[in-house]
């Protein structure tokens, strides 16, 4: 699994944005990772404490939003969620589908603390 490299990338993106905003400390990172991604939240959380130690992100909380994997049937326009295994359209049996959600893989926002004077 590649959770360690993903965790390092989260640290890099979050730290860059925090520094650019002259933040003192990052308190929370809001991630959007679709269900189609094979990332395991718990492993990222586990690595996070180690990877972020001594950085601007130390002690921050990772908040995962996991949009469901939804397919759209191109033949009958039915939208359906897939849980475990990929399946053809449950309404008409078609294999012609488009992925509507579940592929998201980004940092939406970070919550930070700033020195009051740096806002002046």
């Amino acid at each position, binding site marked *: 699994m590649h959770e360690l490299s993903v965790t390092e990338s989260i640290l890099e*993106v979050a730290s860059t944005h925090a520094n650019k*905003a002259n933040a003192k400390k990052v308190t929370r990172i809001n991630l959007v990772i679709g269900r189609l991604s094979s990332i395991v939240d718990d492993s990222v959380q586990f690595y996070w404490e180690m990877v972020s130690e001594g950085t601007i992100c130390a002690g921050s909380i990772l908040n995962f939003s996991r949009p469901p994997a939804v397919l759209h049937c191109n033949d009958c326009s039915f939208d359906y969620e897939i849980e475990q295994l990929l399946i053809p359209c449950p309404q008409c049996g078609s294999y012609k589908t488009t992925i509507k959600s579940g592929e998201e893989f980004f*940092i939406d*926002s970070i919550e930070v603390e700033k020195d009051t004077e740096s806002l002046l």
Partner: protein
Amino acid sequence: MTASTIRVVEKILSTNDRLAQLNKTELSRLGVLGINLMASPGAGKTSFILETIKRLSGKYKIGVIEGDTAPVTIDADKISAVGMPAVQINTGGDCHLDASMVSDGLNQLPIADLDLVIVENVGNLICPAAWDLGMHLNLLVASVPEGDDKPYKYPNIYRGLQVLIINKIDLTPYVQFDMDYFRKGVELLNPGLVTFPVSCRTGEGFPSWIDWITKNISKS
């Protein structure tokens, strides 16, 4: 102290994606076609590369970047033995290659003299799918003995492909593999995907693949 929220909306692997774009730009500038070749362990990646090189070597110069999780040069040695430049990249246990590793590999190859670069990714159907390497074609070597359910179980890797090879078709009579079920799964994920059923052992299917890749090399 004041608390505030900063809007980021940036892809988690954005640094990798930027490096991948640089790899692609460099290859395109030099007119070299790049292939990211992925597969599970044992699907026949190295055999497929060797057979492809054998059939293209009179016409084109091909470089190979071999990704492995351990410092073994078995695969790179096989490529060097057929007279093509090969570079071994040891990922140090990591489950995939990333764009910076490939950039290092490209720097060690005489790319200006090459027509085609094949990057043999680490044998794995999950992790390589998440890292863009900046190659022009993402190619998967699937194989009949792996089973016909793989597209359903590993959807991500099938989603990002431009070419699919189904290897070891000579074994079809001996294993349970429903080609129709397999291809329907692929169609669900990647409609109209260019697919070549082949056998590295008998050479079946290779002429169509070689025709197709030759056209793509001359376009680049």
